[in-house]
């Protein structure tokens, strides 16, 4: 580790050749070469909102904890209530440090009390594997499956129409409840599918063996071709999740932010007996929040970007934009940022400092986009 590494070699997912063949523009992301876009961010974004999109998210980390105490160990490491989950149920949660700030946001999949899968962000894999591995010591088995597990997300209103063409078992996924998962055969590939996603659309995220991903990917694309399904890159993934106000680790949340101020209070179960960060979070809550992550719309002529300063109408710096871009579906320039609690009310006007220009913005209700409920 201490050796000088001039430029770390980027890893590739098993879909690398397919991305290149499909015209994907490959960029470095969390140590991987990943497609930022194929045809264009707006195109891909709209495909997910109106048809469906296919995303390679194999760079995400997958950790498995097994054994009698697996459930208890994971439950102690995250803010959510893992013990309350049914077998086959998944949970969006986060892992905090002792100070109550966020190590990572995660999805925990309870296969059984003795077998739990944890999916973490690629950029946090080293950190999170270390935490889970060390917590597992003397209590349960720990295994990092990241390098042999591919993950493909199929998202959008036509996702289940595509799956309906991928075999009887896959067709039946439409009956899988939200935040539940099961083993399934999709287009003759053995997978585990979860009804989860990061786009604010309905859909599934599909785990399969690293080597099986190209077969699955290409078949899903082919089956969905006439339905308007497109391969989608990280660019569209970002605009889609932003419209749905889904947090991005490294932007909106990190080790300097706590889940309560990040608007993630709903995933923090302070009534749980104990978990890492609980004491700090109880104290933070008792003291009251000083700032909150809010959604805003840029009403002036400008686009908010990650890292831009937010100012009150007198021009004093009061906060920070953590995410911002045009929202292709909402048709506005939107963003997320931390503002002092007193300025968080919907309708509050402030400035976003767009490279030295104070551009007017206003706090709005989030999510910016909400899909119409299916009948």
């Amino acid at each position, binding site marked *: 580790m201490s050796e000088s590494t001039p430029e770390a070699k980027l890893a590739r997912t098993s879909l690398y050749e397919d991305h290149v063949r499909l015209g994907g523009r490959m960029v470095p992301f969390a140590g991987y070469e990943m497609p930022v876009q194929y045809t264009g961010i707006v195109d891909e974004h709209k495909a997910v909102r109106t048809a469906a999109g296919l995303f390679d998210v194999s760079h995400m980390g997958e950790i498995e904890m097994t054994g009698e105490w697996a459930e208890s160990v994971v439950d102690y490491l995250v803010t959510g209530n893992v013990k309350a989950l049914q077998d086959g149920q998944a949970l969006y949660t986060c892992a905090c440090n002792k100070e109550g700030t966020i190590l990572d946001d995660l999805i925990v999949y309870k296969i059984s009390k003795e077998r739990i899968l944890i999916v973490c962000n690629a950029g946090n894999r080293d950190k999170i594997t270390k935490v889970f591995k060390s917590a597992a010591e003397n209590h349960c088995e720990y295994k990092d499956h990241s390098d042999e597990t591919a993950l493909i997300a199929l998202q959008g209103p036509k996702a289940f129409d595509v799956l309906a063409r991928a075999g009887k078992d896959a067709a039946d996924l439409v009956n899988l409840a939200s935040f539940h998962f099961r083993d399934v055969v999709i287009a003759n590939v053995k997978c585990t599918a979860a009804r989860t996603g990061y786009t604010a659309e309905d859909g599934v995220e599909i785990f399969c063996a690293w080597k099986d991903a190209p077969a699955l990917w290409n078949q899903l694309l082919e089956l969905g071709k006439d339905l308007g399904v497109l391969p989608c890159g990280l660019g569209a993934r970002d605009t889609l999740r932003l419209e749905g106000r889904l947090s991005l680790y490294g932007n909106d949340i990190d080790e300097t932010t706590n889940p309560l101020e990040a608007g993630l209070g709903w995933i923090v179960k302070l009534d749980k007996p104990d978990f890492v960060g609980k004491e700090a979070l109880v104290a933070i809550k008792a003291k009251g929040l000083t700032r909150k992550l809010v959604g805003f719309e840029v009403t002036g002529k400008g686009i908010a*970007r990650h890292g831009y300063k937010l100012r009150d109408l007198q021009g004093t710096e009061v906060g920070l934009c953590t995410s911002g871009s045009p929202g292709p579906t909402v048709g506005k320039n939107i963003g997320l940022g931390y503002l002092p609690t007193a300025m968080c009310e919907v309708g509050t006007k402030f400035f976003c400092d767009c490279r030295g220009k104070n551009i007017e913005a206003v706090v709005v209700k989030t999510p910016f986009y909400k899909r119409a409920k299916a009948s």
Partner: protein
Amino acid sequence: MSDNSDKSFPTDLKYTKDHEWAKVTGSEMTVGITSFAVEQLGDITLVSFDVKVGDEIKAGKTFGTIESVKTLSDLFAPVNGKVAALNADLDSKPELVNEDCFGKAWMIKITLDDTKAGDALLDAPAYAAHVKAAG
């Protein structure tokens, strides 16, 4: 990126290493961004100018910014001169840049201090070589 190996660009235009094109008509130069720049930026969502008609501008200084969904880039004046016109259409229709970057989506017209200033810019083959080297 390997997909820019055999690009060709309009031969009646001059180019800069910042991926802008320039067309000189008498004492006036019209400036826009090249198809290569557009391809790199993606969907253009905002063009804003930091100068107004009549302002003096200097070669290499920014006269505005262009933003896509994902990123932002400065616009540079290729030569010294005075701002003769700015393309107001881009205000309401930034997507024109994606549709017609060498035509309707011109950005600025500059009254040249030196009518020969355009000669120093790259011609189409030299720019194509520059793009190839950048790719």
